[in-house]
Protein backbone atom coordinates (compact mmCIF):
# COMPACT_ATOMS: atom_id res chain seq x y z
CA UNK A 1 0.00 0.00 0.00
CA UNK A 2 2.74 2.39 1.07
CA UNK A 3 4.76 1.49 -2.00
CA UNK A 4 1.82 2.15 -4.25
CA UNK A 5 1.26 5.51 -2.63
CA UNK A 6 4.91 6.33 -2.87
CA UNK A 7 4.93 5.72 -6.64
CA UNK A 8 2.16 8.26 -7.02
CA UNK A 9 4.23 10.96 -5.40
CA UNK A 10 5.58 13.20 -8.10
CA UNK A 11 9.26 13.33 -8.93
CA UNK A 12 9.28 17.00 -7.94
CA UNK A 13 8.02 16.24 -4.46
CA UNK A 14 10.62 13.52 -4.04
CA UNK A 15 13.31 15.96 -5.15
CA UNK A 16 12.00 18.58 -2.69
CA UNK A 17 12.06 16.10 0.18
CA UNK A 18 15.56 15.01 -0.77
CA UNK A 19 16.70 18.64 -0.76
CA UNK A 20 15.10 19.31 2.64
CA UNK A 21 16.74 16.23 4.13
CA UNK A 22 20.13 17.13 2.62
CA UNK A 23 19.88 20.67 4.03
CA UNK A 24 18.90 19.34 7.44
CA UNK A 25 21.74 16.81 7.50
CA UNK A 26 24.24 19.46 6.43
CA UNK A 27 23.04 21.79 9.23
CA UNK A 28 23.21 18.97 11.79
CA UNK A 29 26.74 18.04 10.72
CA UNK A 30 27.78 21.71 10.95
CA UNK A 31 26.34 22.31 14.41
CA UNK A 32 27.73 19.04 15.77
CA UNK A 33 31.18 20.05 14.51
CA UNK A 34 30.84 23.54 16.02
CA UNK A 35 29.79 22.01 19.29
CA UNK A 36 32.91 19.84 19.36
CA UNK A 37 35.10 22.85 18.59
CA UNK A 38 33.41 24.89 21.31
CA UNK A 39 33.93 22.08 23.80
CA UNK A 40 37.62 21.97 22.85
CA UNK A 41 37.93 25.72 23.38
CA UNK A 42 36.16 25.59 26.72
CA UNK A 43 38.50 22.90 27.96
CA UNK A 44 41.51 24.90 26.76
CA UNK A 45 40.17 28.06 28.38
CA UNK A 46 39.58 26.30 31.66
CA UNK A 47 43.03 24.72 31.74
CA UNK A 48 44.71 28.05 30.95
CA UNK A 49 42.68 29.77 33.68
CA UNK A 50 43.72 27.11 36.13
CA UNK A 51 47.36 27.54 35.11
CA UNK A 52 47.13 31.28 35.71
CA UNK A 53 45.74 30.69 39.16
CA UNK A 54 48.59 28.32 39.99
CA UNK A 55 51.15 30.85 38.81
Amino acid at each position, binding site marked *: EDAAEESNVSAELIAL*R*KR*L*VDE*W*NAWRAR*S*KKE*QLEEKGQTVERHTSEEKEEIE
Partner: protein
Amino acid sequence: MRPILLQGHERSLTQIKFNKEGDLLFSCSKDHVINVWYSHNGERLGTYDGNNGTVWTVDVDTESRFMVSGAADNTLRLWAVATGKCLYTWEFPTAVKRVAFSADDKQIVCITEQRMGYQCAIRVFNINREGDGTDQSEEPAFMFNPIGSKVTVCAFTLTPNVIVTGHESGKVALFNLKSGEEILNNERAHMDVVTDLQLSADRTYFITSSKDKTARIHDIQTLMVIKTFTTETPLNSAAIAPGKPYILLGGGQDAMNVTTTSLRQGKFETRFWHKVLEEEVGRVKGHFGPINTIAVHPGGTCYASGGEDGFVRVHHFDDSYFRAKPYGDLEIED
Protein backbone atom coordinates in the same frame (compact mmCIF):
# COMPACT_ATOMS: atom_id res chain seq x y z
CA MET B 1 0.01 2.04 20.67
CA ARG B 2 -1.34 1.00 24.03
CA PRO B 3 -1.95 3.99 26.26
CA ILE B 4 -1.56 3.78 30.01
CA LEU B 5 -3.72 6.20 31.93
CA LEU B 6 -2.03 7.62 35.01
CA GLN B 7 -4.71 8.61 37.48
CA GLY B 8 -3.41 10.37 40.54
CA HIS B 9 -3.86 14.05 39.95
CA GLU B 10 -7.07 15.85 40.80
CA ARG B 11 -6.46 18.91 38.68
CA SER B 12 -4.79 19.84 35.43
CA LEU B 13 -1.22 18.90 34.70
CA THR B 14 1.35 21.67 34.32
CA GLN B 15 4.57 19.84 33.39
CA ILE B 16 5.81 16.27 32.99
CA LYS B 17 9.38 15.12 32.70
CA PHE B 18 11.23 11.84 32.20
CA ASN B 19 14.47 11.13 34.05
CA LYS B 20 17.61 10.41 32.00
CA GLU B 21 17.02 6.65 31.81
CA GLY B 22 13.35 7.18 31.06
CA ASP B 23 12.19 4.63 33.64
CA LEU B 24 10.62 7.38 35.77
CA LEU B 25 8.12 10.03 34.85
CA PHE B 26 7.60 13.10 37.06
CA SER B 27 4.36 15.03 36.88
CA CYS B 28 3.22 18.22 38.58
CA SER B 29 -0.21 19.73 38.77
CA LYS B 30 -2.53 22.45 39.95
CA ASP B 31 -3.54 20.03 42.76
CA HIS B 32 -0.30 21.06 44.63
CA VAL B 33 1.21 17.58 44.27
CA ILE B 34 4.16 16.12 42.38
CA ASN B 35 3.98 12.44 41.46
CA VAL B 36 6.57 10.03 40.15
CA TRP B 37 5.55 6.99 38.09
CA TYR B 38 7.17 3.96 36.55
CA SER B 39 6.93 4.70 32.85
CA HIS B 40 6.71 1.05 31.74
CA ASN B 41 3.54 0.17 33.66
CA GLY B 42 2.18 3.44 34.99
CA GLU B 43 2.47 2.40 38.61
CA ARG B 44 2.85 5.31 41.01
CA LEU B 45 6.15 5.13 42.82
CA GLY B 46 5.60 8.08 45.09
CA THR B 47 4.34 11.55 45.85
CA TYR B 48 6.14 14.71 46.85
CA ASP B 49 3.95 16.60 49.32
CA GLY B 50 4.45 20.02 50.81
CA ASN B 51 3.57 22.65 48.24
CA ASN B 52 0.70 25.02 49.04
CA GLY B 53 -0.22 26.03 45.54
CA THR B 54 -0.11 24.99 41.92
CA VAL B 55 3.17 23.30 41.13
CA TRP B 56 4.07 24.88 37.80
CA THR B 57 7.29 23.18 36.92
CA VAL B 58 9.59 20.27 37.69
CA ASP B 59 13.00 18.97 36.61
CA VAL B 60 15.18 16.06 37.63
CA ASP B 61 18.99 15.71 37.55
CA THR B 62 20.84 13.17 35.40
CA GLU B 63 21.45 10.84 38.37
CA SER B 64 17.76 10.83 39.40
CA ARG B 65 18.99 11.90 42.81
CA PHE B 66 17.59 15.42 43.12
CA MET B 67 14.37 16.82 41.76
CA VAL B 68 13.54 20.51 41.73
CA SER B 69 10.10 22.11 41.59
CA GLY B 70 8.63 25.58 41.34
CA ALA B 71 5.19 26.55 42.58
CA ALA B 72 2.56 29.25 42.97
CA ASP B 73 3.28 29.34 46.73
CA ASN B 74 6.42 31.31 45.74
CA THR B 75 8.76 28.45 46.58
CA LEU B 76 11.51 26.65 44.76
CA ARG B 77 12.08 23.24 46.34
CA LEU B 78 14.80 20.66 46.13
CA TRP B 79 13.66 17.08 46.74
CA ALA B 80 15.32 13.72 47.28
CA VAL B 81 13.92 11.63 44.45
CA ALA B 82 14.24 8.32 46.30
CA THR B 83 12.76 9.29 49.67
CA GLY B 84 10.30 12.03 48.70
CA LYS B 85 11.85 14.31 51.32
CA CYS B 86 11.98 18.05 50.70
CA LEU B 87 15.65 18.90 51.20
CA TYR B 88 15.60 22.65 50.81
CA THR B 89 13.10 25.44 50.16
CA TRP B 90 13.85 28.84 48.69
CA GLU B 91 11.20 31.55 49.01
CA PHE B 92 10.58 34.46 46.68
CA PRO B 93 8.11 37.35 46.47
CA THR B 94 6.28 35.78 43.50
CA ALA B 95 5.48 32.41 41.92
CA VAL B 96 8.11 30.19 40.33
CA LYS B 97 7.05 29.44 36.76
CA ARG B 98 9.95 27.44 35.35
CA VAL B 99 12.95 25.51 36.64
CA ALA B 100 15.73 23.58 34.90
CA PHE B 101 18.92 21.75 35.83
CA SER B 102 22.18 22.43 34.00
CA ALA B 103 23.66 19.57 31.95
CA ASP B 104 26.23 18.90 34.71
CA ASP B 105 23.58 18.94 37.51
CA LYS B 106 25.56 21.63 39.36
CA GLN B 107 23.15 24.51 38.84
CA ILE B 108 19.45 25.19 38.65
CA VAL B 109 17.83 28.15 36.95
CA CYS B 110 14.43 29.46 37.97
CA ILE B 111 12.05 32.08 36.61
CA THR B 112 9.84 34.02 38.99
CA GLU B 113 6.74 35.80 37.85
CA GLN B 114 6.28 39.52 37.37
CA ARG B 115 3.59 40.52 39.86
CA MET B 116 2.58 42.99 42.59
CA GLY B 117 5.34 45.43 41.73
CA TYR B 118 7.98 42.74 41.46
CA GLN B 119 9.78 42.29 38.17
CA CYS B 120 10.23 38.98 36.43
CA ALA B 121 13.52 37.56 37.70
CA ILE B 122 15.98 34.88 36.67
CA ARG B 123 17.96 33.29 39.47
CA VAL B 124 20.60 30.60 39.32
CA PHE B 125 21.54 28.52 42.35
CA ASN B 126 24.60 26.37 42.74
CA ILE B 127 23.55 22.97 44.00
CA ASN B 128 25.69 21.44 46.72
CA ARG B 129 25.70 17.75 45.86
CA GLU B 130 27.84 16.75 48.87
CA GLY B 131 26.15 15.09 51.82
CA ASP B 132 22.40 14.64 52.00
CA GLY B 133 21.51 17.69 49.90
CA THR B 134 20.05 19.76 52.75
CA ASP B 135 23.05 22.10 52.93
CA GLN B 136 22.23 24.58 50.16
CA SER B 137 23.03 28.26 49.97
CA GLU B 138 20.10 30.60 50.40
CA GLU B 139 21.56 33.21 48.05
CA PRO B 140 21.55 32.77 44.30
CA ALA B 141 24.86 32.58 42.44
CA PHE B 142 23.36 34.92 39.85
CA MET B 143 20.22 37.00 39.72
CA PHE B 144 18.92 39.55 37.26
CA ASN B 145 15.75 41.08 35.86
CA PRO B 146 15.68 40.55 32.12
CA ILE B 147 14.76 43.69 30.21
CA GLY B 148 11.69 43.78 28.01
CA SER B 149 9.07 41.09 27.72
CA LYS B 150 8.82 38.71 30.68
CA VAL B 151 10.35 35.27 30.51
CA THR B 152 8.07 32.22 30.36
CA VAL B 153 10.45 29.32 29.71
CA CYS B 154 14.20 28.68 29.91
CA ALA B 155 16.98 26.10 29.73
CA PHE B 156 20.76 25.91 30.10
CA THR B 157 22.76 25.82 26.88
CA LEU B 158 26.04 23.92 26.67
CA THR B 159 27.98 27.19 26.79
CA PRO B 160 28.87 27.86 30.44
CA ASN B 161 26.74 30.59 32.05
CA VAL B 162 24.47 31.02 29.06
CA ILE B 163 20.75 30.21 29.11
CA VAL B 164 18.16 30.24 26.36
CA THR B 165 14.78 31.83 27.13
CA GLY B 166 11.32 32.10 25.62
CA HIS B 167 9.21 35.19 26.32
CA GLU B 168 5.63 36.36 26.62
CA SER B 169 6.03 38.51 23.50
CA GLY B 170 7.14 35.55 21.39
CA LYS B 171 10.80 36.43 21.61
CA VAL B 172 13.56 33.87 22.19
CA ALA B 173 16.89 35.03 23.57
CA LEU B 174 20.26 34.02 24.98
CA PHE B 175 21.30 35.53 28.31
CA ASN B 176 24.67 35.74 29.98
CA LEU B 177 24.03 34.70 33.59
CA LYS B 178 27.01 36.57 35.01
CA SER B 179 26.16 39.97 33.54
CA GLY B 180 22.43 39.52 33.02
CA GLU B 181 22.93 40.80 29.50
CA GLU B 182 20.96 39.65 26.54
CA ILE B 183 23.58 38.18 24.22
CA LEU B 184 21.33 37.57 21.24
CA ASN B 185 17.62 37.59 20.49
CA ASN B 186 15.07 36.80 17.86
CA GLU B 187 12.22 39.21 18.62
CA ARG B 188 9.94 37.64 16.04
CA ALA B 189 10.53 33.96 16.77
CA HIS B 190 6.82 33.75 17.61
CA MET B 191 3.90 36.17 17.41
CA ASP B 192 2.46 35.24 20.83
CA VAL B 193 3.47 33.71 24.21
CA VAL B 194 6.16 31.03 24.08
CA THR B 195 4.60 28.17 26.06
CA ASP B 196 7.30 25.49 26.01
CA LEU B 197 10.96 25.08 25.17
CA GLN B 198 12.66 21.70 24.94
CA LEU B 199 16.24 20.95 23.95
CA SER B 200 17.53 18.32 21.55
CA ALA B 201 19.49 15.51 23.22
CA ASP B 202 22.81 17.15 22.31
CA ARG B 203 21.56 20.66 23.21
CA THR B 204 22.53 22.07 19.79
CA TYR B 205 18.97 22.94 18.89
CA PHE B 206 15.62 23.42 20.59
CA ILE B 207 11.93 23.46 19.86
CA THR B 208 9.43 26.05 21.09
CA SER B 209 5.65 26.03 21.08
CA SER B 210 3.48 29.11 21.16
CA LYS B 211 -0.04 30.38 21.52
CA ASP B 212 0.45 31.67 17.96
CA LYS B 213 -0.41 28.09 16.86
CA THR B 214 3.08 27.31 15.63
CA ALA B 215 6.04 25.36 16.90
CA ARG B 216 9.55 26.11 15.73
CA ILE B 217 12.97 24.50 15.74
CA HIS B 218 15.81 26.97 16.35
CA ASP B 219 19.59 26.73 16.19
CA ILE B 220 20.82 27.35 19.75
CA GLN B 221 23.93 29.30 18.65
CA THR B 222 22.35 31.67 16.14
CA LEU B 223 18.68 31.50 17.28
CA MET B 224 17.80 31.15 13.62
CA VAL B 225 14.49 29.46 12.90
CA ILE B 226 15.28 26.18 11.13
CA LYS B 227 11.77 24.73 10.87
CA THR B 228 8.20 25.93 11.41
CA PHE B 229 5.18 23.75 12.14
CA THR B 230 1.89 25.56 11.64
CA THR B 231 -1.24 24.12 13.27
CA GLU B 232 -4.78 25.43 13.75
CA THR B 233 -4.78 25.47 17.53
CA PRO B 234 -2.84 27.36 20.24
CA LEU B 235 0.04 25.12 21.33
CA ASN B 236 1.06 24.45 24.93
CA SER B 237 3.90 22.02 24.43
CA ALA B 238 6.38 20.70 21.87
CA ALA B 239 8.81 17.80 22.21
CA ILE B 240 11.48 16.19 20.04
CA ALA B 241 11.36 12.41 19.50
CA PRO B 242 14.89 10.96 19.69
CA GLY B 243 15.81 8.41 17.03
CA LYS B 244 12.95 9.28 14.68
CA PRO B 245 12.49 12.46 12.61
CA TYR B 246 9.35 13.50 14.47
CA ILE B 247 8.26 16.23 16.82
CA LEU B 248 5.17 16.03 19.03
CA LEU B 249 2.81 18.94 19.55
CA GLY B 250 0.00 19.42 22.03
CA GLY B 251 -2.47 22.16 22.76
CA GLY B 252 -6.09 23.08 22.24
CA GLN B 253 -8.37 25.98 22.97
CA ASP B 254 -8.35 27.08 26.59
CA ALA B 255 -10.72 25.10 28.79
CA MET B 256 -12.95 28.13 29.34
CA ASN B 257 -13.50 28.41 25.57
CA VAL B 258 -14.30 24.77 25.02
CA THR B 259 -17.90 23.66 24.79
CA THR B 260 -18.05 20.39 26.64
CA THR B 261 -20.38 18.56 24.31
CA SER B 262 -19.94 14.86 23.77
CA LEU B 263 -18.57 15.61 20.31
CA ARG B 264 -15.47 17.07 21.88
CA GLN B 265 -14.92 14.22 24.33
CA GLY B 266 -11.51 12.64 24.07
CA LYS B 267 -10.76 14.65 20.98
CA PHE B 268 -7.71 16.53 22.15
CA GLU B 269 -4.84 15.23 20.11
CA THR B 270 -1.09 14.92 20.26
CA ARG B 271 0.09 15.76 16.75
CA PHE B 272 3.12 14.11 15.19
CA TRP B 273 4.97 16.15 12.58
CA HIS B 274 7.93 15.26 10.41
CA LYS B 275 10.56 17.63 11.73
CA VAL B 276 12.47 17.99 8.45
CA LEU B 277 9.64 17.96 5.90
CA GLU B 278 7.33 20.05 8.13
CA GLU B 279 4.39 17.79 7.33
CA GLU B 280 1.92 16.32 9.83
CA VAL B 281 2.25 12.52 9.93
CA GLY B 282 -0.34 11.50 12.52
CA ARG B 283 -2.47 12.28 15.55
CA VAL B 284 -3.18 10.48 18.79
CA LYS B 285 -6.36 11.48 20.57
CA GLY B 286 -7.53 10.71 24.06
CA HIS B 287 -7.49 13.74 26.34
CA PHE B 288 -10.73 15.39 27.45
CA GLY B 289 -9.21 18.84 27.53
CA PRO B 290 -6.26 20.73 26.08
CA ILE B 291 -2.86 19.06 26.29
CA ASN B 292 -0.67 21.14 28.57
CA THR B 293 2.59 19.24 28.47
CA ILE B 294 4.32 16.52 26.43
CA ALA B 295 7.53 14.62 27.10
CA VAL B 296 9.26 11.93 25.07
CA HIS B 297 11.24 9.08 26.65
CA PRO B 298 14.97 9.81 26.13
CA GLY B 299 15.30 6.42 24.43
CA GLY B 300 12.45 7.29 22.09
CA THR B 301 10.39 4.25 23.14
CA CYS B 302 7.35 6.04 24.53
CA TYR B 303 5.90 9.45 25.15
CA ALA B 304 3.60 10.96 27.75
CA SER B 305 1.09 13.79 27.62
CA GLY B 306 -0.46 15.68 30.52
CA GLY B 307 -3.81 17.34 30.08
CA GLU B 308 -6.07 20.01 31.43
CA ASP B 309 -8.31 17.00 32.21
CA GLY B 310 -5.98 15.91 35.05
CA PHE B 311 -4.76 12.78 33.29
CA VAL B 312 -1.34 11.70 32.18
CA ARG B 313 -1.37 9.29 29.23
CA VAL B 314 1.70 7.21 28.48
CA HIS B 315 1.89 5.74 24.99
CA HIS B 316 4.45 3.06 24.27
CA PHE B 317 5.34 3.04 20.58
CA ASP B 318 4.66 -0.25 18.83
CA ASP B 319 6.70 -1.94 16.09
CA SER B 320 4.89 -0.16 13.29
CA TYR B 321 6.08 3.19 14.67
CA PHE B 322 9.70 2.09 14.47
CA ARG B 323 9.28 0.42 11.07
CA ALA B 324 7.33 3.24 9.46
CA LYS B 325 9.21 5.34 6.92
CA PRO B 326 6.41 7.58 5.70
CA TYR B 327 8.68 9.38 3.25
CA GLY B 328 10.90 6.57 2.02
CA ASP B 329 14.45 5.65 2.87
CA LEU B 330 15.92 9.10 3.51
CA GLU B 331 18.58 8.99 6.23
CA ILE B 332 17.97 11.82 8.70
CA GLU B 333 20.42 12.97 11.35
CA ASP B 334 18.99 13.26 14.86
